């Protein structure tokens, strides 16, 4: 199933003005330390990396670890001097990979 994400940011900003981007993704972030009802250890299944790029240039990146709660939420700021596309990507265990794209208009 495709991952569920929420991206909260202005779609249109003023040139050189700082703004905030807030992203959330639906993910269980299973730590690998818990046991299921059958007593067996639940295998680790977490997101390990988040990256945000603007026209090929890194804006923000983060490594994620087992202690981070389910449905990780991240917020960060950026400035832009031209219009372009933001690419948000998450990677994780079991080959998890998800990408979202948002067009940003600079006026």
């Amino acid at each position, binding site marked *: 199933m495709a991952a*569920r994400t*929420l991206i909260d940011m202005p779609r249109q900003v003023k040139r050189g003005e700082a703004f905030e981007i807030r992203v*959330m993704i*639906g993910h269980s*972030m299973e730590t690998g330390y818990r046991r299921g009802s059958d007593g067996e250890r639940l295998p680790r299944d977490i997101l390990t990396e988040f990256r945000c790029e603007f026209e090929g240039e890194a804006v923000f990146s983060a490594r994620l670890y087992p202690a981070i*709660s*389910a449905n990780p939420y991240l917020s960060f700021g950026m400035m832009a001097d031209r219009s372009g596309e933001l690419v948000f990507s998450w990677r994780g265990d079991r080959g998890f990979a998800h990408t979202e794209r948002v067009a940003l208009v600079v006026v």
Partner: protein
Amino acid sequence: MSAVFARCQAVLLALVALLGSIADPARAQGADSRRSGFDFMSAATQALQRDDAQNPVMLWVADGARRWRDASAGRACAECHNTAEQSMRGVAARYPAWDDRLGEPVNLQKRINLCRERHQSQPPLRSEDDAMLALESYLAMQSRGVPLTRPDDPKLAESLERGSRLYSTRIGQLALSCAHCHDQLAGGRLGGSPIPQGHPTAYPIYRLQWQSAGSLARRLRGCFAGVRAEQPAPMSRDMIELELFLAARAAGMLHEGPGVRP
């Protein structure tokens, strides 16, 4: 003379107010003394609920909006109900309601399942199925800010009475009723956690302890387990009647849409 008249008038008004409160038990508790679980939360958790960009339940709401229009398995919800923002406004705030064909009260989850069976030819969803929680959250979203309605269908009277009895009956190895904690000890603490009044104003909720969205039935089953009683199944008659009583008890309080709870 006019002073006497004024006093008579005041007494009369007080009488009317008193009679009014007898007629409406929910109001007799004092509308002012009822508080949502929201008020018992820390400022940080409240902030999480206030901001849709931070509230994780919005992941389910967005998924529900998609499923509302999804016609891949036959007929989409939107085909009959059109735009949920209009057609479903206030619906979540007036459930559980009576279903004539079943001859029993149904909660919102059961209504969704009945719709699936009767009109979409799809199998029912389990209470904690992500698809169920998504649709329910999406519907709850359409009732944000709407006061919970006191069910006035006379057919519900018997169920309401049974729900009320379940609420105040001692159950489980600890021999506690819902009322012991949520009426008598609300505002106090159980271990480190505040005891709320138990008003179902924000379901389905994103519960931090669960790290997930969950239904009112799941929360209630937690309470049943807490007093070491047998847990009624979600969408069972007992469960829905208890939910019905809780809805009547919270009538007039505002639906918060899908909320966050610790």
